[in-house]
């Protein structure tokens, strides 16, 4: 029972982290209709920026904000300079470009910050919380992670569902030509979409790194798992991304704890296949299946 509780709590925190990452993928998909494989690398860069600040004695939360700002800037610059030239061409061009970007960012970070593991501090405790005499398998930082992810998700739902800006962003992504005729400044919306997505990615990076070790490859497992979580929920839906992330986190946690760590990646891919077979557009996609 104790193990079940601990494993579940651990799975929820892990799931929240995948969810944060899936949210960033979902955001970029919603606002530009491409899948960004460089998301993990961009988040890794912003996390390293925050780590440098923290090591220079900047308070944690200032560094946290700096990472988000850096993500916002990085996303905007990448969209304007790198993605813009291939916009309007085949979707595959942009996707391949993001794969290339992934490698470039990896290399640059390794050159700038070195490849060794470094500890990344957390703003709150990373030891298990005790209830009475028994400690339960969740840490204050784990709780913080879940809360932050819930806030980000709520923010995105509000943005897309209830604001004019969100509507314009979706319109620009959905059909640029028509939106332009209707007076939406499509270019600006696309830039904003990338910037916001990278900012959310930066938050995910900070949550993943806190109380753990980082190296330039630390985000790599999230390229695949975050993508699976996003597709599970239907790339289109922030709520779906979060639920997809939680399903994935819990499954991986149970498999690792009860069966064996070596089966975890297989299970993740198994879940993905089943969902794609049964509901090709994801568990929570509202629209009918669309050609990607």
């Amino acid at each position: 029972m104790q193990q079940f509780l601990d494993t579940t709590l651990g799975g929820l925190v892990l799931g929240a982290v995948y969810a944060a990452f899936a949210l960033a993928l979902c955001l970029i998909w919603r606002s530009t209709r491409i899948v960004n494989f460089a998301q993990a690398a961009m988040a890794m860069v912003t996390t390293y920026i925050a780590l440098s600040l923290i090591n220079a004695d900047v308070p944690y939360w200032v560094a946290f904000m700096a990472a988000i700002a850096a993500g916002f800037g990085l996303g905007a610059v990448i969209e304007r300079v790198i993605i813009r030239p291939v916009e309007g061409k085949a979707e595959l061009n942009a996707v391949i470009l993001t794969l290339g970007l992934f490698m470039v960012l990896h290399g640059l970070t390794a050159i700038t910050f070195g490849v060794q593991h470094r500890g990344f501090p957390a703003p709150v405790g990373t030891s298990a919380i005790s209830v009475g005499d028994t400690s339960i398998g969740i840490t204050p930082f784990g709780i913080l992670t879940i809360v932050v992810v819930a806030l980000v998700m709520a923010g995105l739902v509000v943005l897309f569902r209830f604001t004019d800006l969100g509507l314009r962003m979706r319109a620009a992504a959905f059909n640029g030509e028509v939106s332009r005729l209707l007076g939406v400044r499509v270019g600006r919306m696309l830039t904003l979409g990338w910037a916001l997505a990278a900012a959310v990615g930066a938050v995910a990076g900070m949550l993943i790194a806190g109380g753990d070790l980082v190296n330039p490859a630390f985000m790599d497992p999230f390229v695949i798992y975050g993508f699976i979580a996003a597709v599970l929920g239907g790339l289109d839906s922030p709520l779906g991304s979060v639920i997809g992330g939680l399903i994935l986190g819990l499954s991986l946690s149970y498999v690792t704890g009860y069966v064996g760590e070596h089966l975890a990646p297989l299970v993740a891919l198994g879940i993905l296949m089943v969902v794609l077979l049964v509901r090709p557009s994801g568990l929570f996609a509202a629209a009918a299946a669309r050609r990607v």
Partner: protein
Amino acid sequence: MRNTARRAVQVVCVLTTASLLAACGAGKERPSEDGTAVGVTDTSIKVGAHFPLTGPAAPGYSEIPSGHQAFYEYVNDNGGVHGRDIEMVVKDDAYNPTNTSAVTNDMILQDEIFAMVGGLGTPTHRAVVQRLNDDGIPDLFVSSGSLQWGDDPAGSPMTFGWQPDYEIEGKVIGQYVKENMPDAKVGLFLQDDDFGEDGEKGARQFLDAQIVDVQKYTPGGSTDFSPQMSSFKSKGVDLVIGFNTPSYTALSQIAAQGVGFKSKWFYSNVGSDPALVGGLLASMTKGKIPAEQGVKLMDGMMTTEYIPGVDAPDDEWVKLWQKVWDEYSKKGSEKLTNYRIYGMSQAYTFVQALQANGKDLTRESIVETIEKEGASFEGPGLAPFRFSEDSHLGISGMSVVEIKNGASEPLTPVLVTDIGDAAIEEDDSAASDVPPSSGIPE
């Protein structure tokens, strides 16, 4: 249809050409008729090795080749070995077996190395053992304790281990736990390959009844070990024996703290370097604990030791390594570490083998020399080598130690044994070896 046929013809042509080219290349590095070997001239010997200089296995391990190189430079400046300077080529494989094959190919075909010395890693080196043996290239002193380097000299005649294999380490740890902690509920934390497997095999000889849980991890996979630690916690484990690499020691400590799992810890020698692991743990405390004091976080952990390390600055061997490192480190600011000592100790054994071989050096002769004389090499190892025609396994023993303030305090004398049912015996004889005054084996 015709298109497919034409494509097929093209593919066959390309493949044939490629394999012809490869065959030509492969012919090049065989020893020539007059008895001199590839990579050896009257004034030089070229050797090579693959190490993870980048990636998750790089912390610590990437320092080993710098130890090799410093010691070879020291030897070269003192006249070399039989008039030959030793040059070492180091290639990065990032602990990825695919890369290991590629860089080994480069070393064989382009750099034309005489021998591989100290290539690191169980999964990585396994990818190139066959190739090295097929081509008759000496594959000396692999930086890994897997059994496969030495328990089958007929199958891999050119390959030699160096450090104690993980099976005898498992046996020594198992016996110690059985005798001193007979009531402990043991959990095994294992790297999911030969490393963990061989260690478990040794430990189970003594602890089969005491082991209540076994958890594994895949190197390069998930780094969140909370589920594994939760499992230990729920099964009442109070002693974890870990056969894992150093960053995973830090990660397992972090995860144990995260799920509130308290235990005694016994890490294999590979994963226990106090300076490295302590530094990693300290860096997570936001500067509250300076890196030098991070080693305190390792207090009370047990491990094994088979060569003297930085925590014994008065040891004659460590004095030699310090002298060599001070003089020959490429960047003067970097400190001597246990990994650099490991590299220098290996390099010492290689120089010893070259000295014993004499001036007429071929790939066959070096193998023969180590088989005949290796068991009597005196070096920094606390126990003698097991080298013979029937065994290419390395150092035969170690002592169990406890970490206190970053230094290791011996809990047992040197315990010497072999794989299988061989008894474990106390034998301090090799621990008193001291280096010759020149610092170069004679």
